[in-house]
Structures are given as C-alpha cells and as structure tokens.
C-alpha cells in the first residue's frame, strides 16, 4: 500500500504510523462532559467503506495526514495535511514521482 504524502510523494505504508479515525473531536480541555470524552477516547466509527483516518509520515517528513481510504479495497481517494493552513510551501510536483 502506498500513501501519497503531499510533501514527500508516494511512499510505502511502512513509512507511516496509523493514528486512527480522523473525525474525532477532542472536547474542550476544561470540559467535564464525560460522554464527550468517552466518545473521543474510546468510540470509533470503524466503517466498512470510506474511512477518514490519520496517518503520520513518521518515516519521512513526520507530518500528520488526513487520508480518505476505503477499508474494503484499500483505495485511497484523498490525502491532506492535518495542518492544511499555511502549507503552501513545498508540495511534490506531479510527475516528480510516480
């Protein structure tokens, strides 16, 4: 499986560390809403199909990426930095990498 890091280009899955479901919202730090914390820490959507998930390119630029991947086919439909804002610098040009 290859994940195309916006910075580094397509790299083998072994360079990445999986960090689970992307959509989880961390409650306000001071929040005492137990249900919200329980959901954030423990509950997962775990869909059979399109899944929005986090990967860290730990063996490369170490950026965290939001990857949309189909859990039935492993086909990846999109990849973006989690810190999309301000990431204008440096994207692999198309063609630089297959």
């Amino acid at each position, binding site marked *: 499986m290859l994940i195309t890091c916006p910075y580094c280009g397509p790299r083998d899955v072994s360079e990445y560390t999986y960090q689970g479901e992307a959509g989880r919202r961390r409650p306000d730090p001071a929040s005492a809403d137990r249900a919200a914390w329980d959901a954030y820490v423990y509950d997962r959507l775990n869909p059979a199909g399109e899944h929005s998930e986090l990967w*860290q390119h730990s063996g490369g630029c170490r950026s965290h990426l939001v990857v949309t991947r189909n859990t039935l086919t492993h086909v990846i439909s999109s990849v973006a930095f989690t810190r999309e804002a301000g990431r204008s610098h440096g994207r692999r040009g198309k063609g630089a990498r297959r």
Partner: protein
Amino acid sequence: MSPRRTPDGGRIDRSRQVRFTFDGTSYSGHPGDTLASALLANGVTLFGRSFKYHRPRGVMTAGIDEPNALVTVLEGDVREPNIPATMLEIRDGLTVVSQNRYPSLAFDLGAINGLAGRLFSAGFYYKTFMGPVIGPLKGTRFWMFCEWFIRRAAGLGRAGHAADRSRYERVNAFCDVLVVGAGPAGLMAARAAADEGRRVILADLDARPGGSANWSDETIDGMAAPEWVATMLAELSGRDNVRILPRTTVWGYYDDNTLAALERVTDHKAKPETGEPRHRTWTIRTGSVVLATGALERPMVFPGNDRPGVMLAAAAERYASEFGVLVGERAVLFTNNDRAYRSAAALARAGAKIGTIVDVRDTVSAAAQRLASECGAELLTGRAVVATEGRSRLTGVTVRAFDAKSGAVSGDARNLAADCLLVSGGWSPALHLASQAGAKPRWDAALQAFLPPEPTQNWVAAGAVAGAYTTAEALRQGLEAGRRAAGSSDDRGEIGIPLAADDELDPAPAPVFEIRADGKAFVDHQHDVTADDVRLAHREGFVSVEHLKRYTTLGMATDQGKTSNVPGMAIMAAAVGKPVEEVGTTRFRPPFAPVSLGSLAAERHGHLKPERLTPMHDWHVAGGATMMTAGLWFRPQVYGQPGETVEQAYVREAKAVRGSVGIVDVSTLGKIAVQGPDAAEFLDRVYTNTFSTLPVGKARYGLMLREDGFAFDDGTTWRLGETEFLMTTTTVNAGKVMQHLEYLLDVVWPDLRVHLTSVTDEWAGAALSGPKARQVLEACVTGTAVDDATLPFMGIVRGEIDGAPVTICRLSFSGELAYEIYCGAGYGTHVWETLIAAGRPFGIVPYGLEALGALRIEKGHVTGAEIDGRTTARDLHLDWMLSKKKPFVGSAMMDREGMTGPGRLELVGVVSLDGRPLNGGAHIVENANPAAPRDSIGHVTSVCYSPALRRYIALALVEDGKARRGTRAFVSDPVRNRFGPVELVSHHFFDPEGKRLHG
C-alpha cells in the same frame, strides 16, 4: 524402456558436462538441464513418495506446478527441502536427496499406509483417535500419543538446524510497466511498452525466458520460435529502459501496484561471485502490470493416474523439445482436447513411438486427426484410460469405451503396452496474480477454465492467461497489452506484429475431468486426495470450495493445487449436480509459488535490528562493562571486576556513589528540543504540572498522562531560553512520547507555534552523583562556577570541559548531590574521560544500570516497571504533580471510578525479612502457601540489595498498598520456588527528607 537423452535437439549445452548427485548416486547432465530433465535423461523415473500413502511418484510436469518430484538440496549441513526437481537447475557439485521415504526411495516402509487406503479417507482423523473419556489416557493424552506417530509419518522434506549463512537481499524497483512472464505475449508487451519510452521490467520464472516459444515448433516472424525469442531478448536487453529478470518469480500482488518477486540469483551457480545473494527479493512499484503468465495444463483424473510414467502431455513435449529428453519410447496419449496432439507429434518427431491416442471425445477435428496420422498413432475416440499397470514404472494402460456426456464407462477392456502415458485434461490459465488483484475469476464454459477476473488494480492480461491459447493471438494480445499498459491509445494499427501461423486446433477441451472406474484416482497427487475423497466430502456436507479444500486438504500442498484445483472443483460440481461456477472459485493469495523465508528477511537475515550505541559505548566495552540491551540500545549493566558477581559489582558501584562519587552514561534518555513562542503553553498542556512558570536556566521534573488518564512517562525538562526547552523522556518511551507530542501539535492544537526535534543523538549525557560530585566538577569545568549559588538544585549552567562546551543541570535520580552533564555527542567520550580523570582523586567509579536501579529504588523513584501503562499517578503517589489549576492531557479522564476506587494496585516498598534476595515478578500474598499459591494481592516490580539499608528491598504494586504500609506479608514466587516474609513499607526507603540532594 527408460527415458533417455535424444541424440540432438533441445536448448541445453551438449558440449559441457555437469556432475551432480541424487540420493548418493552421481549423475551427469548438461548446462541448461533441470534436475528433472537430467535425471530423466539418465533413465531415472522414481523421484519421490506421496504424502499420505507413500506411493511411488515420478515427474508429472516440467515446471512450477510439479506436485510429485520434490527433493531436498543439501549444502553442507544446510538443508533446502521440498524443491521441485522441475525448477532446480543442475550445477557442478549439486547434492540432492529424495524425501518422505524410509529407509530408501525404492523401498519405503510408509507405503504400508496404502493398504489402509479407505480407512485413511478424507477427514478420518476427525472421527477417531479421541481415546477413552476416563482413565489414564483421558483428555488429550490418547490423541497426543497417536499424534506422535502421525507427525512423524507426515511432513515432506526435512529441514535442518544448521544456520543458513547465505546472503539474501531486497531491491526496491520503480517502473512504469511490469511484464510478468516472458513468453510470446510478455515479450511483445515488453517491447511495445519500451517503444513508448516507458521504464519496463520483464520478469520470468524460468532460467530461459521465452515461455512456450522455447519449445514450440512454430515459426514467428519468419524464424523458428526459439530463435525469435533470442532475437527479442537481445533487442530488449540492449535498451536502457528495460530490465530483464530471468529466474524471477513474481509471487505477490499487493496494494497500489506493489508486487513482490523472488530472483534465484546463484542457486544455479557452482560458485557465487563475491557479494552476490542467493536470493533477491524485488519489491516492484509500478504504474501498470501486464500479466502474461500463461496457462498450466491439467491432468485427467482416472485410476492409477499417479504411476511414474504418467505425465502431462505438454511437459513431455517440453522435455523433448527444450531439454532433448525423451520421456518414453512407447507412448500413449490420453486427452480431451486437440492441443495435446501437438505434444504427441513433438514426441514422435523426437523419436518416440506414439502407439495410440485415446480421446474421450467421439469426434475430433480434422487438424487433430491429421496430427494423429502424422504420428502414426492409432486414434481411439470415445475411449478413456481406466487403469494403468506397472509398479514404480508404467508398463501399460487399460482402455475402455467412454461416454463423454454421461461419464459412463462400458465395453471391453483393451490393454496397451506403454512406458509413458501423456495426459491432457485441458488448460487452466495461471491467473493467480490476477486473482490477488481482482474480483472473482469467471468460468468460461467453452474453454472449461477460469479466466482472469475484473481487475481491482491497474493490470491487463495477455496470452494464455487470458484464454488466448494460440501463439498468434498471444502475440497480438501482448502487443495490445503493452501499449495499453504504457498508456498509449489502442488504435495505432498493427505495426510489425510478427504473426505466427494461426492454429487450426480447437482450443476448447471436452468437459471431462474424471474417468470413474475402480481404483484410486488422484486429484491432488501430492496430498493423495482422490476423487472418492472429494465425493466423501460432498456426502458429509463439505461442499463449498473452501470446505472441500479444508476437509480433504485438496490444493493445500506445496504445489498449491496448480494441477488439482479445477479438477477437484469439477468433480465436486458433478457430485452436487451444479455447474462448476456455482460451486465457487478459489481466491488465490500470495505467494504464487513458495518463497524462501530468507529472501523475505533479505538484508535483515543475520542482522534483525541495528545496534544503537551511545557516544561512550566503546569506552564502556573497553572498560570491562557487561552490556545489556534496552530496546535497540546497548547500555552498561555493571563494570564488573574479576571474580565479582553482578550483585557484588553493583553494590560496590552504588556504595561508591553514596560514599564519594560515581558516573553513569545517561545518553540514551530521550531528548526532544521543544522550540517556539508557544512552547511553554504546550508543555503546560501535556505535562500534569506547570512549566510556563519555570524560569530560564532551570529544570523541572514533569509527569505526562495518556488521554485516558493513566500515567505515561516522566522526565525533566530544562528551560534553555524563553522559547526553548529541552525535554527528556525515559529511554524506552522516547519514540512514543515524540509521536504523542507531534500528534497533539499537528492534530489537536495546530494553532500552537511549537517545533519538536529529536535531539537524543545530539547530546552525550553523563550523570555525576555523590557527595564529591561538585568537587569533581570544580576540578574540570571552566567558564562557570558550579557552587550552590550559581548552580542550585534544578539549576542549569553552561561551561566547558577541556574545551568542549557543556550544559550542566543539577538534578538527581540517585538522591545524592548530582549533576547531568551534556555535551555534543562527538565530544562525549572526551568529556567522560576528563570527568573520570578529575574524579580519580575521589575514587570515582563508573556505574551501570544495576547500580542506577539500586540507587533509585532506595529513593523510591519509579520507572517503566512501575509506569507500566496500567498505573495512575495516584497509584504511584505522584498525585502531588497533578495541577488543579489547569487542564492537561489526561486530566478529564483520570478520576473515573475504575481508576480511583479501592483495590487499586499502589506503590509500596518491600523489605525482605529472611535476608534473602527478592525477585522481580514475584507476587505478594498475605499468607504464603507454596503448595497451592493463591490470593495474590500484588507483585514486585523492581528489586535490589540496598547497600544503604543493608537489606534486600523492592518496589511493589499492591492492592491498597498505601494502607498496608507497616504490615507483614509474603513474597510468593512459585515459578522460582521462592517464598518468604516481607514487610510492606513506604517506597521512600532512604533519606526520605532529601537532605543528601543538597550535599
């Protein structure tokens, strides 16, 4: 008659001899021979014994689909079992033995199993060997008694214990088009893609790329087929955008067009070149793939079809045409299709007498009839072979009338003398890789075969794998596939297709897979699965293909059912009374053919993990330290002196620290540069305590929790500047803490301006501890004072030691006056040596992990043994570090009822009351009961002999431990048979007020 070498022909080098041994007998062959062709040329027909019945077996195929002729290759003590003789190239000195026989291949005692054939029907072991329900053989005992014998009878080759010292390697390759299979279709595809300027890799599992063109009698582009292959290969290898990989089996089709291939680099060489690996794994990442993997001929199922001398028709043709070996003098062909007539003709041309062609069909095409008469063979249509004669070698076959529609056998038996029987039951496309990267294969009723499925990845099939069985069609498909894979349009016209003559033979076989008559008819030859076994599976309800495979073991042998899957399914389909496609299809998974474990370990064979060394590593080793591993790191355990035990050594070291001064290498601590305007705010959020109030030039001990509120890691963090911190972590958690922090910054708080960088390797660290530590520093540090005022507890100064810049922080893990001295790693050894020289007047000793552990246990400091992922800050009495003024990671979850209620395991000190050592991993009980240990209330986490207390002490996690302080208990260690009284005490064993910290 025996098989023999033909006087001429074949693609072997007859001018040279190669000598090898098989079962101790020396033979010779020629370069270009496989073990199978060379042994056949020497008249050998018996190659192996089958798995269950130990029946004598010969060679059935000429390739990777071989179920029978498996051998073990010896290289000294190193054994390589289960290698198909058909894939093993001979070389000088090759030493091969047969397998699964005792005492010899010709006389095998295991053959007695054959007598009990019906008892050993499919799944018989599920129904028996259960033994008595009560008594001495109850439970699993009777089965295990039987199993001992069964295990020895089972298995094929024998692997050895001698370490394989060969070299293996992996190469990562990137290309635009990978072509798998270098037969006519693959060669055309590779050239077409290369013509488009693409980077092309062409891989073929045989030593001689070319596929069927290597043994075909056809003409391609005006040349004999083998000549055309040579021309194509020469042309392709001259291009710098093409890489040709012979002896390379592409075995795995993984996600995103990542394919794995095994190149057998030196197996065929008498002596490898320096640095050459035995096997090389190619990990190929490619834009698109052309699968030109061809098709595998399948046998017919009939009684006695496993007799040595029964061989696939195309295999016999290949031996004759490619290897110059005639597998028999007097052959009978038994077929359900036209294509096999060409094989008969090839054998006839090579000098065999084709006595009879037995065809299950009532009528055959004119072209086939013509071939039969060219062979001078009698053509018996509407007949089938129902039996074979001979023992370890075929002597004749029995033929009866056969109705292809009903499957009924009738009429008189006719015996035909024959020393070889060529069989052909049609062809199965080798769609294994296509299946790995595709949907369900589809059944083609005309071709009676599964064809490649819809792709789920970017590949295109061409040639026989796609059902194009004629060379002309394969060439055409190859060209088109190559162009498509290269991304060019399909409609460029037919440029330079070197057409072979179109074949007039009907590619479709009759839908006949089995001839039902008396006797064992084998479907899976290697596993001895018979047609009756398939029907038994049906009778017992194991009908789905997966049940069939699992119940009968059909297709589970080393050949992975390449010759048996389709016939087995067809027989099941007949039993069920449904078409084959409704019985199901087999989903193929990697590997396509077996691959050596070594090739997958590649460069890690013999080097599983790198060694991670501190800057002072060589000094420690030279200084007599016993090194121990901590993750990838190597660290000194003790610097033992001659005659010392480990305990004596660390006690000596620890005493020196408390008595004067010691030095320990702490370079392995994780170190993270935390930089940026929001660094302090960030630390406040990730640590349980506050760092924003920490002045520049001071350090603070910090504790981190996980999001779920459990303790995670601890360490000191130094404020080096307004916006710069140096965080330290425990050695084992360094990577995890880094990832935890990076996650928080990237995902949770992207607005914070903080950079994290691992600087673990930038700094060498030495901890100098003991009442004389300051004096040692004073003797060697320049550029700063180190007195109490300049360098108070948790203070930081910068200076130099013999010219090397150092950063010194006064902090203590041992409870003594202590300093951590950090310098650039390149200066580490120099600074270390300088400190030791400065400490010599004070009797400084270097100390290792054991003494470090003893000193911190005396102080009650926790490490990974206590922060084990299940303990909370409260459990470890670190609740004083939990800020109430701010939220932090874990603060919302740390007070849940399961983490605060009674019964939690809490940190306590343990003192041995019987004067004997305590052991890590021992449990704590209120009443020791060595005979029947029970009622554990906790366990010992860290142990040492305390030089300060002169007792064996330990830290432990004990239920409600805090409340048990001052009570008696027992250590209970049944695994090591150690029981004894202890007292549970506070974990602060030594200097609880911390007076010594201040010298």
